[in-house]
């Protein structure tokens, strides 16, 4: 059964304007992989050159940041609220 992943405003330009996308997957990591398979132009915004998830990409499952759960290994199931949320970072260093 597909699970709905909510897409933040900043990334809707890459998902045909959709604010949520239905995807198959059992973990957060699988959902993100499916998302970039469906919308390849998103890949560069979600992952760095080494294929690591960018630090400002956060996923919330039922209101909880998966960084405090099991990260990309966090299990997901139908009926949960799953959202992609950006953090904002930068600075004049480097």
């Amino acid at each position, binding site marked *: 059964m597909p699970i709905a992943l909510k897409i933040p405003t900043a990334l809707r330009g890459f998902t045909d304007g959709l604010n949520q996308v239905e995807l198959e997957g059992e973990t957060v990591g699988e959902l993100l992989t499916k998302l970039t398979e469906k919308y390849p132009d998103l890949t560069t915004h979600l992952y760095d050159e080494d294929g690591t998830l960018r630090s*400002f990409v956060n996923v*919330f499952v039922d209101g909880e940041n998966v960084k405090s759960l099991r990260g990309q290994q966090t299990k997901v199931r139908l009926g949960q609220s799953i959202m992609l*949320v950006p*953090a*904002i*970072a*930068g600075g*004049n*260093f480097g």
Partner: protein
Amino acid sequence: MEVTESVIKEIREHGARAYPYEACGFVLGRFENSGTVRGEKTLEAVNSREAESRRRRFNIEAEEFLEAEKAAQSQGLDILAIYHSHPDHPARPSANDLEKALPFYRYLIVRVANGQAEELTCWLLAPDRSTFLKQNLVIAP
């Protein structure tokens, strides 16, 4: 991007107040039917970097981003831009800004030199993330 004079004033004032640390926050406003992006309000954010790196870095946690989005929506507005200050550095995005930039949002950067707010610039991430594209910043009533 269009902004009101008070938006400019508030960003400059926040940058000066936070000096020598980096100030950061949001610009809220509307996407007008004409295609114009119009900033009407600012919302200060907490720079969550640990004290010794706040001079050179800023960070707004995802939790605070969600709160800001809610605050905007409750006023019928959207987050349009992210602002931050560059204490004693030019008002140009750094390599670090580029690495962590989000598409879609405008990035406003104010240079603060010796506690005094100076140049304020506006940028948008290129779709391939290769660079920031400089945007016009128009003050409108």
